[in-house]
């Protein structure tokens, strides 16, 4: 992103976002929600004011999606969306047909404030930063003094050009190395997706210290530990199916674990800048103990998250965008090609996803107002379930989105912690 582009009235989509508009469907959403439960009922007037103060500081989020001839683009505007009534699960927010559909939605209900983001705009890290800044401004308007904090954007400053940057492009170099290894399709939990509703959400709240201590006892990170528990639950479902005589076509269980690339590159972009790791096991090789799963995931994650391995993903993704035949392909052709590529290569490769936003720190003045923070991912109809995690204060908040009625995965997942003598509080 060059300076003049930051001043234009439109923005090109970043590299990671380019596929989303073409592959848009009810069955395969690319949205996430971050929400806070406050100690007191939300005061809508202040929340609307806070949004009016905060959104202009994030001009890359104040956009509509439009079709160009070769690519989609983001049309900037100055409209402040109205605060809406919060739905229990995020509703779709992107409409290519609706020319003035906002791509973030701020909503409230009782004590809860939620922001739904389209992945076309940003990833979890960028979304969290916006959400926390909005929350801080809301609390300021309620009369509290909120001090500056690295997780909050300074509303007195103008947005920097680096915040607009497509960091995938900036960190790209033409690698002579081969593309990342081609992956075989993975196992997916069985079940027919809901027809009457979009999906169901089950949330679990656990003491973060206990889970962290358990993970450390095994010598792995929190995310690796949660991924192993997820994988263990998937194996149990796989085996149940096998015991019932169902012949399994796929024996690979592979997790998708998003990684914030800002940790590896000095970027302050507020747009998408994350990749994912794909640790896997092959059940055709035999059974796995939980300890084996932990070791397997730990070592693969350590290996895959090296900067050089991640660079291979960037080189492949950005290199594909630079190809002349891709650049000059009319958008209606791209729509067809990308939908096909996405369904064949994108969705089939992972059995489950676990996205961890990490520990959220806030200025002490904000804490008395906020009871809890939550992160929710929208599941697609292939993986059927997905898991989003963040920790705030002393709680680890885990949310499972599901497009099928069966709750075995969630039950097995949370039962593991009960067996570890870690209390779990569940809410649907």
């Amino acid at each position, binding site marked *: 992103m060059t300076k003049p582009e930051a001043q234009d009235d439109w923005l090109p989509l970043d590299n990671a976002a380019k596929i*989303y508009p073409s592959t848009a469907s009810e069955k395969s959403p*690319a949205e996430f929600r971050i929400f806070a439960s406050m100690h007191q009922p939300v005061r*809508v007037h202040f929340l609307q004011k806070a949004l009016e103060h905060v959104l202009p500081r994030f001009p890359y989020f104040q956009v509509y999606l439009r079709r*160009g*001839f070769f690519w989609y683009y983001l049309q900037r505007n100055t409209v402040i969306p109205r605060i809406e009534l919060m739905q229990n699960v995020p509703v779709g927010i992107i409409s290519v047909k609706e020319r003035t559909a906002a791509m973030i939605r701020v909503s409230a*209900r*009782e004590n809860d404030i939620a922001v739904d983001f389209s*992945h076309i705009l940003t990833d979890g890290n960028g979304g969290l930063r916006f959400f926390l800044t909005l929350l801080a401004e809301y609390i300021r308007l309620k009369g509290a003094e909120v001090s500056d904090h690295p997780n909050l954007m300074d509303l007195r400053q103008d947005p920097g050009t680096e915040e607009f940057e497509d960091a995938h492009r900036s960190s790209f170099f033409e690698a002579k190395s081969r593309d990342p290894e081609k992956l075989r399709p993975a196992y997916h939990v069985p079940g027919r997706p809901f027809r009457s509703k979009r999906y169901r959400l089950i949330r679990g709240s656990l003491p973060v210290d206990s889970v962290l201590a358990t993970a450390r006892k095994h010598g792995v990170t929190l995310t690796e530990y949660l991924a192993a528990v997820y994988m263990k639950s998937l194996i149990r479902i796989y085996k149940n199916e096998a015991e019932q005589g169902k012949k399994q076509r796929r024996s690979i269980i592979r997790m998708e674990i998003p990684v914030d690339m800002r940790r590896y590159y000095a970027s302050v972009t507020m747009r998408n800048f994350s990749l994912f790791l794909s640790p896997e096991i092959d059940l055709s090789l035999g059974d796995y103990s939980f300890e084996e799963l932990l070791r397997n995931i730990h070592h693969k994650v350590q290996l895959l998250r090296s900067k050089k391995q991640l660079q291979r993903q960037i080189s492949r993704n950005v290199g594909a965008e630079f190809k002349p035949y891709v650049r000059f392909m009319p958008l209606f052709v791209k729509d067809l090609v990308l939908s096909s590529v996405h369904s064949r290569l994108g969705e089939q490769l992972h059995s489950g996803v676990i996205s961890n936003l990490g520990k959220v720190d806030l200025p002490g003045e904000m804490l008395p107002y906020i009871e809890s923070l939550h992160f929710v991912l929208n599941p697609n109809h292939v993986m059927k379930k997905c898991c989003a995690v963040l920790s705030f204060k002393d709680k680890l908040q885990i949310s499972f989105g599901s497009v099928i009625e069966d709750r075995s995965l969630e039950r097995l997942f949370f039962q593991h912690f009960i067996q570890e003598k870690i209390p779990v509080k569940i809410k649907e």
Partner: protein
Amino acid sequence: MPICRNCGVEVEDHQSKCPLCGSPVGNDEVRETPVPEKKQILNPDTAVDRKRQEKVRILFHEIIDFIALAGAVVVWAVDYAYGMAITWSRFPLISIGFVWLLFSLPFWLKRRVYLMVCAEALNMALFLYCMDRFTAGDPWFHSLALPLILGFGAAVLLSLGSIRLLKLSALGGISVSLIAAGLWLLWLEIIVNRFIGEGPGVSWSLIAAASVVPIIAFLFSFDARLKRQGSDFRKHFHV
């Protein structure tokens, strides 16, 4: 502060209706039907399977190799079997070799564009030299074919070099290619006229080259307009 009985949020004192659901505030009448959800969604990531493309490319090249080799062996065998010497088969053999190189050079030199252009020009020159050598009549390679091939190669290199060095946009690239094509047409007529013994003057090629000028002028001015004010244009046509 009044609280909406439907949404549970606090509402300002002066507001009679909840700003979220529209229910009257401070009234027992509560909206029972949920606010209808808007529909719409999007969707995620993908990977371009370059490895598979590479395999297809290799397979394609192997098929070309096989067809060329099989064709050459059959042609040679048929010719040799009837007269115990190579006679007419020289022409199909040379043609097969030319076509084989024509397809193989991009495969070998896919990342070296300038070298590939030179190699293709050399391949064409070699093919035409052989044709000239093995056909009866006045020689035409040195006076006609070679200058035309060199001129064509130079035009392609000029276009490619300009596009790359000047980092031209798509419209700029098309304009430069049209300029190179116009120059080559002029060169073509000069060489052909010299070969058939006419003067070095130009006629039809000048008309062809001149007719390209307004198109180039339009493309350059359109390109400049895009760069100058062109947010509206660029956003629709950015690549």
